[in-house]
């Protein structure tokens, strides 16, 4: 008679043990699950916010943004959160600012808001720049050339009627975006920034005029229609090499009563500070949770020792060396640790990945998920840390079991 049997390896014995004590096993798995979930979720959140901030800092090509008085907050909303808005003041300001001492470059921009949402899942901000003076948008386009999905872009700049769109704008299959019942060719799509720029469509001043004319013919009207010719929404300013942007902002405010001045350094610094606090909070919370988890696991493992004295005594009697007992205890905690940490990681991913955008809006900070490599590192580190908690908590118990002599006599009633 030939029998097929499985090996009663340490893994098998541990598995049978775990199966027989479902409640204890569930406790062990759940503790590690919570740990892995928090470690991975927290670090993913922190890393995404940091990446978001970096990308935003890269996009902020201007030191100052001058907007009509009272619209500072709205302008910040446009930049950070993609809340479409529009406001206007006299376009002559751009030329005046360009002449001002300490100003290296000044370029006007015009804002328009499109509610015709054929292209997009949310209202879209339209921004027109002046190709002659622009020092912010055109460098992005150049830098983002590899992301330019579509051809037809003339050398050296954006052609008449052409658009450059943010990462979250949907482009039609024929390479256009429809605005006010007209199709406009897309010359390039920018990479994700997690800022308001992702839902923004850029064009030249000339294109915006054409777009408005076309829209008028279709019967659309704009609030800007009432504004005098040459009105602009914002003037972007680059400060000279050794000019402090804050002092320059003060100087501009002194010279021009009817403006607000946003200092991008200030915005970035405020965000960076909020982020630092948030990351520090996540980190300390993770450390505390890790310690608590190890302590809880220690209590569970050590609490089950009394109940298991007999089991270990039997194994000793049958000739298991001390090492084998240690291995059994560690294998059990490794199995529960692995199950808990994998499940926790998976749950964190399931919860966070699909709600990227929602989270980004909720937090009100730029948020970009790390790439595959970054995710892998975060995942592996979280996995290792949460997984290690189990065996680490079990090791003292394991050693205690293997040392104690009094356990090894089995008497009736024990």
């Amino acid at each position, binding site marked *: 008679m030939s029998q097929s049997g499985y090996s*009663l390896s340490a893994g098998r014995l541990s598995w*049978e043990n775990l199966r027989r004590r479902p409640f204890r096993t569930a406790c062990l798995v759940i503790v590690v699950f919570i740990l892995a979930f928090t470690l991975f979720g927290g670090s993913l959140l922190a890393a995404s916010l940091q990446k978001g901030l970096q990308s935003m800092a890269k996009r902020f090509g201007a030191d100052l943004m001058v907007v009509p008085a009272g619209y500072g907050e709205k302008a910040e909303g446009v930049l950070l959160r993609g809340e479409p808005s529009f406001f206007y003041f006299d376009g002559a300001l751009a030329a005046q600012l360009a002449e001002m001492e300490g100003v290296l470059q000044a370029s006007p921009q015009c804002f328009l808001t499109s509610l015709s949402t054929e292209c997009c899942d949310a209202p879209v901000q339209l921004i027109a720049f002046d190709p002659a003076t622009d020092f912010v948008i055109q460098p992005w386009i150049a830098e983002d050339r590899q992301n330019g999905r579509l051809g037809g872009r003339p050398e050296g700049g954006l052609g008449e009627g052409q658009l450059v769109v943010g990462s979250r704008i949907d482009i039609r299959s024929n390479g256009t975006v429809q605005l006010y019942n007209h199709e406009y060719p897309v010359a390039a799509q920018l990479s994700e920034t997690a800022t308001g720029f992702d839902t923004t469509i850029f064009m030249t001043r000339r294109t915006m005029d054409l777009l408005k004319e076309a829209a008028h013919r279709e019967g659309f009207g704009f609030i800007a229609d009432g504004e005098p010719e040459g009105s602009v929404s914002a003037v972007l300013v680059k400060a000279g090499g050794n000019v402090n942007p804050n002092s320059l902002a003060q100087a501009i405010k002194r010279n021009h009563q009817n403006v607000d001045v946003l200092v991008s350094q200030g915005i970035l610094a405020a965000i960076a500070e909020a982020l630092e606090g948030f990351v520090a909070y996540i980190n300390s919370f993770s450390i505390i949770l890790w310690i608590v988890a190890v302590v809880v696991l220690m209590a569970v493992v050590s609490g089950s020792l009394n109940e298991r004295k007999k089991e270990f005594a*039997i194994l*000793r009697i049958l000739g298991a*060396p001390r*090492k*084998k007992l240690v291995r059994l205890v560690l294998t059990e905690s490794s199995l529960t640790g692995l199950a808990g940490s994998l499940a926790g990681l998976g749950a964190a991913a399931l919860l966070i990945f699909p709600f990227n955008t929602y989270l980004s809006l909720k937090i009100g900070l730029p948020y970009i998920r790390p790439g595959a490599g970054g995710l892998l590192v975060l995942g592996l580190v979280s996995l290792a840390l949460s997984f290690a908690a189990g065996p680490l908590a079990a090791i003292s118990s394991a050693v205690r079991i293997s040392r104690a002599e009094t356990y*090894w006599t*089995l008497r009736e009633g024990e």
Partner: protein
Amino acid sequence: MLLEIGGLTKAYTRNHRPFAAVKEANLSLEAGEFAVITGRSGSGKTTLLSLAAGLLKPSSGAVVFQGQNIFTLKDGEISFLRNTKIGYLPQGTSLLPSLTVLDNVRLPFYLQSGGAPGKGPRRDGETVEKALSLLDRAGILPLAPAYPQELSGGEQRRVSIARALFNAPALLLADEPTGDLDEQTTAEIMGLLRQIAKGGAAILLVTHEPGAVCPGDRRYVMNAGTLTEEK
């Protein structure tokens, strides 16, 4: 001489006072011999067997097994000895509740890395075959797939015996193997132990059964830690 116990003493601390559970015990056993220890409860019988199996370290004295003082061995070596050459039937039930009867019996093979070299099965299938034949010999083959909780006390005891025999030990230590069993079952278990002794193993049996002793057995009495041989 297979087993030679000399001047063996085990002192415990109880109520902050040293107290000898086993005092200067001497005992020797040849292969194939059958020795019976009787004695009142608490006299130190279990302690003596645990010392003989190397499960406890003595306060003084030696246990020489096959010419080797086992207390000079490292844990790994003494565990190996216990696994391959010493069968131990502990007092009370001693089956692992998470494993089936079959797996309980073949468990000893897996407790030393690589199994017991030189003898015994080499494949998992062979351990199953061997365990089944031992269960058959103990008269409980149909119980192989059952779990220990589903067995009676006498059936559990037979499983323990089958398990203790798995690696064909040279010495079998049995601590009241018929403790709570009826007359009929007791006789059957005793018959099983006699069979094992006939097979060449030495047996050291702790029992309260007056009828357990046969002519030719060595008889010992344990009294408050002191072991005396009755001639």
